[in-house]
Each structure stands twice: as structure tokens, then as C-alpha cells.
């Protein structure tokens, strides 16, 4: 135990901030991630992460805290995405890939110009790979508030969100403004991505969004329980990652420490793989967008015969 909790861990200010922010991030990403996977919109999360990279770099350039850059860029992109209908795309097709490439190119430019102006060299790394140990304490209230607002939006819209992901037409028939709901969801997603970007970097943020929720959905069918499981899984990965990163100061190369984000994403993957250790025969819950194999052509042909 002593080697897990190296001396000074719990009395370190940055560690405590990291644990707090990490908790906010994990819970927010965990809950919103479940909706993301259920709605089949993982790619939207990925796109928002790339856009967040541009935003964070831009914020660095103008001297603002990276979180605001992540947030503003993400929310603007979310609004545009809903308007254009991009979020319905399932994968990195050419158009979105090229546009996001341009966004990343812009990030490159902002990072370069910002590094010139401020003569700090670490920005590329913190924007892309996270800065959870160097969060300035005055941003913490903003981080917590953003997470709370995003979760509130999701809580209010939870039923409607589930309805619109399962059957948008039915939702429309019941008078639900599917567009508005979609935009609200994407905005909450953007907030979640921004928080994750602060913790583990824009480039790696999708791990916290997709990993714990996919893990949870492998274990339970109920969305409510999945959200809880997802939050817990994300929390475990994040906190353990922080602890290990602190401990790694004592690992080679000494006095340097390994990045938190590396630990967190690896733990997230491990968590997902662990979910494969389960008794056979249990029904694997599916996203509403997948067809059950019982509905496949083979079985209907068999039935005809």
C-alpha cells in the first residue's frame, strides 16, 4: 500500500485539485458517454475533440485558460454540427476528416504563434495531452459549474434523449423538438469533451467519453445503471491514473513523472477488456441502432425453409 500511495500524495495541493477535477470529469463523461454510445454518436465526440484542440490552442494564443478555448470552440461546433447534420455521420468519412484536418492545422498554427509570443514551450503538450496537475485553482469553480450544468441538462432531457435515440419519428409525432434536443445534447457533449480535454488532453479525451460507457453498457442493459457504472468506472480509472502518475515520480526516469493521461487511457482500455470476462450466455446489450442477429437474413431464410 505504501508504494501505491507514495509520501505526500494526499497533502499535495495539485493532487487534490486533480482528484477533484478528475471526479467532475469522470462523472460528466461517464453519464454523457452512455447517451453518446446509445445514440451512436461516438464520432461526434471525436470531432468535438479535434475542434477542442483548435479551441484550446487558440485560447493559449490569446492568453486565456485552455478550458475556455475547448469550451467555446466545442459549443460553437456543436451548434454548427446540428445545423448541418454532421453528427449523423457514423465514421470518419472524407469530408469531415478533411475539415477536421484543417482544424488541426489551425491548432498547429495557434500553438506555434502562441509559443513564440509567450516563450512558454509546454503548451503543445498540455493542450493535446492534458494538464490536470497544473490546473490553476481559480478555474476549478468554472470546471465544476460546467460539469454540473451539463449533467443538469442531461438529467432534464434524459427521457426525451432516450426516446429520440430510439425513435426520432415517434418523438416528433409526440411534439418533441428533435433538433433542439439534439443541439442541447451536443452542447452538453461539448462541455464534457472540454472537461476531459483539461484532464487528459484534447487528443485523448474520447477515451473517457467512450471507454467507461462502453464498458458499462456491456455489463448492464438499463441506461440508469449504465450511467452509474460508467461514472464509477471512469472515476476509478481517473483517480488511479492520478495516483500512479504521482507515484511515477519515483519511477525511472527519476524526478520526472509519467503523464496522467497515459495512465488514464490505458486503465480505461484495461477496464473495457476486463468487461469481456463475464459468464457466457448472458445477452450482450445492444445499441438501439444495431440490428439483433435474430433479424438477420440467414434466420429468416431458415424460417421460410
Amino acid at each position, binding site marked *: 500500500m505504501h508504494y501505491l500511495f507514495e509520501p505526500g500524495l494526499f497533502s499535495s495541493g495539485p493532487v487534490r485539485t486533480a482528484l477533484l477535477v478528475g471526479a467532475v470529469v469522470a462523472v460528466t463523461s461517464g453519464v454523457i458517454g452512455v447517451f453518446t454510445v446509445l445514440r451512436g454518436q461516438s464520432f461526434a465526440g471525436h470531432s468535438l475533440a479535434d475542434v477542442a484542440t483548435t479551441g484550446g490552442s487558440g485560447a493559449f494564443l490569446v492568453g486565456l485558460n485552455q478550458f475556455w478555448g475547448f469550451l467555446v470552440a466545442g459549443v460553437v461546433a456543436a451548434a454548427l454540427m446540428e445545423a448541418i447534420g454532421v453528427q449523423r455521420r457514423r465514421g470518419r468519412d*472524407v469530408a469531415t476528416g*478533411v475539415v477536421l484536418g484543417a482544424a488541426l*492545422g489551425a491548432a498547429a498554427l495557434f500553438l506555434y504563434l502562441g509559443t513564440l509570443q509567450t516563450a512558454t514551450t509546454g503548451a503543445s503538450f498540455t493542450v*493535446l495531452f492534458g494538464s490536470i496537475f497544473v490546473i490553476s485553482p481559480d478555474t476549478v469553480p468554472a470546471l465544476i459549474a460546467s460539469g454540473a450544468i451539463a449533467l443538469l441538462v442531461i438529467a432534464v432531457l434524459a427521457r426525451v434523449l432516450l426516446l429520440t435515440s430510439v425513435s426520432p419519428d415517434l418523438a416528433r409525432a409526440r411534439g418533441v423538438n428533435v433538433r433542439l434536443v439534439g443541439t442541447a445534447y451536443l452542447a452538453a457533449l461539448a462541455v464534457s469533451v472540454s472537461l476531459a480535454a483539461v484532464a487528459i488532453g484534447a487528443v*485523448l479525451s474520447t477515451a473517457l467519453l467512450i471507454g467507461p460507457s462502453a464498458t458499462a453498457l456491456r455489463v448492464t442493459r438499463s441506461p440508469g445503471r449504465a450511467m452509474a457504472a460508467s461514472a464509477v468506472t471512469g472515476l476509478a480509472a481517473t483517480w488511479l491514473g492520478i495516483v500512479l502518475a504521482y507515484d511515477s515520480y519515483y519511477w525511472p526516469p527519476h524526478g520526472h513523472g509519467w503523464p496522467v493521461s497515459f495512465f488514464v487511457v490505458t486503465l480505461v482500455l484495461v477496464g473495457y477488456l476486463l468487461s469481456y470476462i463475464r459468464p457466457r450466455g448472458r445477452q450482450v446489450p445492444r445499441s438501439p441502432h444495431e440490428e439483433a442477429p435474430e433479424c438477420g437474413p440467414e434466420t429468416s431464410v431458415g424460417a421460410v425453409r
Partner: protein
Amino acid sequence: MFSPLMMNTWVTASIVAVIAGIVGFFAVLRGSTFAAHAIPNGAFAGAAGASLLGINVIWGLAVFAVAGALGIGTLGADTRGRRAREDVVTALALVVMLGLGALFVSISSQYAEETYALLFGEVFGVSRGEVLPILGLGVVVAIAIGVAFRPLMLTSALPEVAEARGVSTRGVELYFLIVMALATSMTVPVVGALLMFSLMIGPAAAARSVTARPGTAMTLSVVIALATVWLSIALSYQTNWPLGFFVGTIGAAFYLIGLAARAVAPRRAQAVIS
């Protein structure tokens, strides 16, 4: 701009552009855009690791890129479309690769510059040590494509016919993924892991928007890739702004021009397999 020192840059970048244009043509044709995004991520970790160990970065890129290609190809993650279940593992594995790269980079002493160079490109820093491997890789990829041109075209356009003729689509797919991995290893040092997609896919997609004839499309893809790279080098040299910015922006611009051209004058030529 055309001093002897810069010749290294022009030559290397041109070779990379030609190869990217050719490989990209097939990638767009086969819809392997996911692989074009995934392989550079894995390659980044290899590059960072190689740099940490003091080995030539190209070898790190190549080893990890090919390993990633084999992983994607054999694990059956469909590069031509997306199936839900393998997606999560592949997506998480890719992110872990990036995280691993972050780890390697952070341990090295030059971590800020190196992060930047590996992710966003650094053609002006291409050393002598890297030019020869890039040239070699280019030759290998060109030969690999040339030798397999017909099976590649056949499996891309008419997979069922290919299978009927005894050509294994799975085998060709794996072959192509490895070729793309090698092409990635030579492109990433120039434009960076995050922007490789823009150079490899952008020009090829723009060309395909304009014409479906394979020969014309591939040639146009190479031309656009060269134009992108040359413009980027010239502008980067003048402004000192990063090359990756220009590649990303110009690549997108060409793609949009291609889309506009198709909207204005829908392409008439149908793909012809002779």
C-alpha cells in the same frame, strides 16, 4: 528558397507527395479512410519510442505502423465501414497508442518540440539520416503498388468478381494496409501524424470528385498532392508558420474545390477496368 540546404526539403517532400497521392487514390477508392486515420496514431507511438531510444525515427514509425496495419487487418476491424463492437476496442487502442506516444515524448528531454514535430510535421528538420529511408520506402511502396495494381483495382471496384477469379479480397486488403503503413512512415515526418490524413486523403478525394477514370484520378491525385506540398513549403518558408497548417488548409481547400467542381459539372467518365 532554393538553396542547396532546402533541396533536401523539396526533394523529400515531393517524394512523399507522390507516394501519398498514389496510395491515397487507392485508400479513397477502397474507402479505407478509417485506416488512414488509425495507422498514424499508432505510428506516433513508434516514432516517439524510437526517438527516446535514439534510433532513427523512421524505423519506429514503420514498425508501429505495420504492426497497426496488421492488427487492423487481421482482427477484422472493418476498414471499409464501421461495425459497432470492434470499434470500441480499436478506438481505445488507438488512444492508448497516442497516450503511449505522449509517455515516450514526455520522458525525453525535448518533449515540447518533439510533440509538435511528430504530430504536426517538421519537414525543414528532415535530416540526412531520414532522407534515404524515405526514398527507400518510396521505392518500395511504388513497386508494391505497381506489382499489385490490377488486383488492387479489381478488389476495390468489383470485390465479388475478384473473389470469383480467385483473388483473395482479405489478402489484398491486408497487403494494401501494409503498403499504407509504409506510406505513413514516410509521410508522418513531413506533415505529422495528425495531418497525414489531409495529405493522403484530401488530394485523392478531390481528384475522385472530378474524375472516376483510374489513371486520370491517380495522376490528378499526385498532382494535387505535389501542389499542396510545394505551396505549403513555399508559404511556410516565407512566413515561418508551421507546414502542417498549410497542408491542412490547402488540402481542405483543394477538396472543397473538387466538390465544387463536381457540383458544377458532374463527372461523366465511369470507372473502366480494362
